[in-house]
């Protein structure tokens, strides 16, 4: 390993690394502009996979001591374009690259969302997310964030879903504007563009201003994470966009946002004692968002929308952790460390299981042509492998031990409960937050049970489900990898937690000792619990082996079971809807049809935020977007033109600030 210690070689390695990340992806982007053949599409996707594969090397290289910082030999009037990957970013980049790669592999194999344009945009999105996570100057951060928004906006095009896309576009830009103001102001205060030089700017600007800045940054990135009330675009876009776009949005883009929020709060601005007010506000908002997401996911009719709200809930929990950290950091630093680790770990875990589930849904939709969960069912009999893979994802999402989803929730509850806060007022937070986490957890579990149960179990509810097309070759591969990751990251969670500790320590400046492990209930519990579960189940299996078995038709009380005599997904959540009805409003409409005695019952759920906040807004926007859509030519060159124009606008805006 001697050679890596030589500075020159390290620098060379850095350049090679960045080159290897950017060149294939850039080449892919350029190719996509030039060609429109489907054969080229695979090549372009292959280039993206290459870039991702290189991206995975970020953490190992960083761990080996390669500095991974680079300034582009370009300079603009407002500053340099610098990249620097610190420890926590390298973890995020590596895992995000894995997820990105697997999603692109799935894109290639499933071919439901293919074409030069799509693959090219994937390359753009990868570059953008990489840049955003690696950014060391404000300019790179803002530009790449804008690129993420634009490329996902373009990636989301499928059929006629302009309404959902424009909603996303507008909301994301509200967030972008907030971010631009916040970072512009910070840059002005700091007097430098370089992010790594920003440290504790909160002390300079004063507590009130820094609280406003924290709020703006959280809300700004929160528009992508789906914080209330900015979550409204998510179900619409997830429901209508290509599933892989949704997967990328919910995993890689969320990772980027969480990472940047984390670094902004704890490093750039820095947490001071007087900031607990805003922490409380964010905790309240995050808890409300989590509950809202959990509740709404229960009534969704499309699997993708269920997962959209699940993302809302999961990301809200992460924000909750980050905000709790702001309170803990002054009271009990070791618990602050623990809760930040919990939050970051949950971000990583979320990206693993969520991408797995979205790929599953894509495969289901691809094989059956069915989008409505009310018409699904019985796939476990026809696509057993897919069912096995996705039950692991579902277990993970529902936080069932020994999967990774369990570990992060377990850590979260530990750090919420373990801390000993000085003031009684703050202590009151603990039971309330715990209650919110508890209710969300079980509601989401219910929602996931519904998701799995009504897609894979029971009897098929439509023809497409009865005889699905076989899965395309190789689509199972990325899902299997992710499923293994779900379990593996559960068993070996402590390894990842140790890695995250270093990052948390370096970003927040909390003393490395005492180790977070000193406050954990049992050092190696995830592994031990996993092993115990395995041993016990093997023991049970050995003692009570499966006995004789006879397959019969499901008992229908002496009559044949018709196709409608099966519990429905809407019925499944109806009791909960009734219990929590104030949040759902009146939902059932009975209509008498003209043939006398025949009746039709419709159950419709409209998200109240959409109905009362966005509908009036949206109507106005639709009118505008209809005018704008005339300028859409469906040609990628035109889109890139728009990207360019927006970028120039951004640059100008930054310049003015």
């Amino acid at each position, binding site marked *: 390993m001697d050679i890596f210690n030589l500075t020159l070689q390290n620098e060379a390695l850095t350049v090679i690394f960045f080159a290897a990340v950017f060149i294939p992806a850039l080449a892919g982007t350029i190719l996509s502009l030039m060609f429109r053949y489907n054969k080229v599409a695979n090549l372009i996707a292959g280039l993206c996979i290459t870039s991702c594969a290189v991206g995975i090397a970020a953490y190992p290289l960083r761990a080996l001591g390669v500095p991974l910082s680079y300034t582009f030999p370009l300079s603009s009037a407002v500053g340099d374009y610098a990249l620097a990957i610190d420890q926590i970013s390298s973890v995020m980049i590596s895992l995000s690259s894995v997820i990105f790669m697997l999603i692109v592999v799935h894109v290639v194999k499933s071919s439901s969302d293919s074409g030069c344009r799509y693959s090219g945009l994937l390359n753009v999105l990868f570059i953008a997310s990489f840049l955003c996570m690696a950014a060391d100057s404000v300019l790179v951060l803002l530009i790449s964030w804008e690129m993420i928004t634009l490329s996902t906006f373009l990636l989301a095009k499928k059929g006629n879903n302009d309404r959902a896309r424009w909603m996303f576009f507008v909301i994301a830009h509200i967030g972008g504007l907030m971010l631009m103001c916040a970072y512009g102001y910070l840059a002005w205060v700091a007097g430098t563009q370089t992010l790594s030089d920003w440290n504790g700017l909160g002390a300079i600007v004063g507590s009130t201003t820094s609280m406003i800045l924290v709020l703006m940054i959280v809300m700004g990135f929160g528009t992508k994470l789906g914080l209330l009330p900015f979550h409204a675009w998510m179900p619409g876009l997830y429901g209508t966009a290509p599933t892989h776009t949704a997967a990328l949005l919910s995993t890689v883009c969320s990772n980027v946002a969480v990472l940047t929020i984390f670094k902004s709060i704890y490093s750039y601005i820095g947490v001071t004692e007087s900031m607990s007010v805003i922490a409380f506000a964010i905790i309240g908002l995050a808890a409300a968002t989590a509950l809202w997401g959990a509740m709404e996911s229960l009534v969704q009719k499309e699997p993708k929308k269920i997962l959209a709200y699940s993302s809302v809930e999961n990301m809200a929990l992460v924000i909750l952790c980050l905000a709790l950290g702001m309170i803990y950091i002054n009271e009990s630093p070791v618990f602050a460390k623990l809760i930040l680790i919990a939050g970051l770990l949950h971000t990583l875990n979320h990206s693993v299981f969520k991408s797995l589930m979205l790929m599953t849904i894509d495969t289901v939709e691809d094989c059956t042509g069915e989008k409505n969960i009310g018409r699904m069912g019985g796939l476990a009999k026809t696509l057993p492998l897919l069912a096995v893979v996705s039950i692991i994802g579902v277990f993970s999402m529902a936080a069932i031990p020994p999967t990774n989803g369990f570990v992060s929730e377990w850590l979260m509850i530990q750090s919420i409960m373990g801390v000993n806060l000085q003031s009684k007022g703050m202590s009151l937070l603990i039971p309330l937050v715990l209650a919110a986490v508890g209710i969300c957890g079980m509601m989401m579990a219910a929602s996931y049970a519904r998701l799995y149960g009504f897609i894979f179990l029971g009897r098929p509810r439509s023809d497409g489900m009865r005889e699905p097309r076989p899965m395309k070759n190789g689509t199972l591969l990325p899902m299997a990898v992710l499923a293994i990751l779900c379990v593996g990251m559960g068993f070996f969670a402590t390894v990842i937690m140790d890695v995250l500790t270093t990052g948390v320590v370096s970003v927040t400046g909390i003393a490395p000792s005492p180790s977070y492990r000193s406050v954990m209930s049992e050092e190696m519990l995830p592994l031990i619990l996993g092993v115990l579960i395995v041993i016990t189940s093997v023991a049970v299996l050995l003692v009570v082996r499966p006995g004789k078995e006879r397959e019969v038709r499901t008992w229908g*009380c002496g009559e044949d079971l*018709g196709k*409608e005599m099966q*519990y429905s*997904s*809407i019925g499944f*959540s*109806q009791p909960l809807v009734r219990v929590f009805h104030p949040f759902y409003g009146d939902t059932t409409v009975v209509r008498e049809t003209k043939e006398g*005695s025949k009746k039709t*019952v419709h159950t419709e759920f409209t998200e109240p935020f959409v109905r009362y906040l966005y509908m009036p807004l949206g109507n106005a926007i639709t009118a505008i977007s209809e005018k704008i859509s005339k300028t859409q030519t469906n040609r990628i060159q035109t889109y890139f033109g728009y990207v360019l124009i927006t970028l120039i606008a951004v640059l100008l805006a930054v310049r003015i600030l």
Partner: protein
Amino acid sequence: MIVTDTTSCDSDLLAQYVKTYYSDGWRMISMFASESYPGATINVLLRRGGEIMRITSEVVDSYPAVAAQVPAASLFERVIYEMNDIHPDGHGNLIPAIYWRKGDGHPLQKRPYDTYNEIRIPIPNNPIRGTGVYEIPVGPVHAGVIEPGHFRFSAAGEPILHLSIHLGYNHKGIEKMMEGPVSKNRTYLAERISGDNAVAHGLACAHIMEGEAEIPDRARRIRVILAELERIHNHLDIVAGLCTDSAFVVAAAYGAEVREELLRTNRRIFGSRLLMGNIVPGGVKRDLSDGDMSELESAVMKVGFGAKKLDGYIRKTPSIVDRLETTGILSNENALRYETVGVIARASGIRSDVRAEVPYDAYGDLSFSLITRDKGDVMSRCAVRVDEIAESVSLILQCLAEMEEGEIRTDFKTPDGFSCGLVESPRGELVHSADIRDGRIWRYNIRDPSFVNWPSMETAVMDNIVPDFPLINKSFGLSYSGNDV
């Protein structure tokens, strides 16, 4: 009991006739077709208070449906269509009355009936569709030991959006078996129509057989005792059953115990737990000795106290009161619209009781009050039952106190012609009617109160939640076997 008035009309005018009578306050109690070569006679029995009117109409193989004018006829016409193959034109809802059966013919026709094949007609789907609406099939084979019947719920979650009740699995062909020479043992068969209402069915049959014969006073009083004993054990069974279904086990066990005591007394005194074989045309089978009477008196009083105690258990436990109140409301309007009878009608505020309106046997000499409630929920039906037990106890005690020595049977001759027997069975107004020609029963019709009450349950359960259905069903306490004669 002889019908007060008979008119006949053209089959085209039948519906109009019935409608005219309806507007005059008459109410249909039975309707059936009696085969006669060629064609058949449609008989419609109407009642207004104590008067009974029969309208007859000759038809060939079809006639304009009465149901089009009078909805109450709908049920009867379904059966007429299936049993006699006479088509009511414009009926609109001719779903089958029997889904599983032997033979593909029309059993009540006089021609030979082939029972070789087993026919299973698929049960139609409920007429309600929509997002997330599913059907819950329950029965005909149930998890518990109850009679067969198919219930098809439509729901999208817990509230019931629609319920269709499909019965007919118990069809035994009793109406057909009743045909033949008039003999005393017809009551034997009648008692088996619905075993828990043996006395009521036996009495109704006996009333037909006896014609105008004078029944000895002692026999008439014993008949009342039997009928009221039957009412008590039926009501107790249902009240205890309500407790069982709501997992209120101690009260349920107590109710079952009280009922069991009574049944054992029945066995000792009358030789049958369910009082079978006691009603014979012309009187009763068994006389009561003084010892029997005193035993019966103390047993009945014990039951009266037991029922009070059971009622106390229920009323003093908020959890079960909460469960029973506001559940399964059958509003007064619906009870009238569906022409319900018996306990169910009385719990919905309708004052109808055959014992008071058309007194038979000794009821005319006895005093009792008519129990009603007006909420129409499960609790009301339960309360009506509990209070009726007390009334029955008082009736039995009155009979025992004024019992005079005398004969218990008399000779009689069954007159030819049409006659009907009306009895207030524990479930409500029970109607048997028979067309007797040359000493032979040509056509025997049985209309159990369950037959007219079943459809009303379809509205009573609406908007209740699925798990409350067993309670509602139990509170109606209807007979499957009586419905599917």
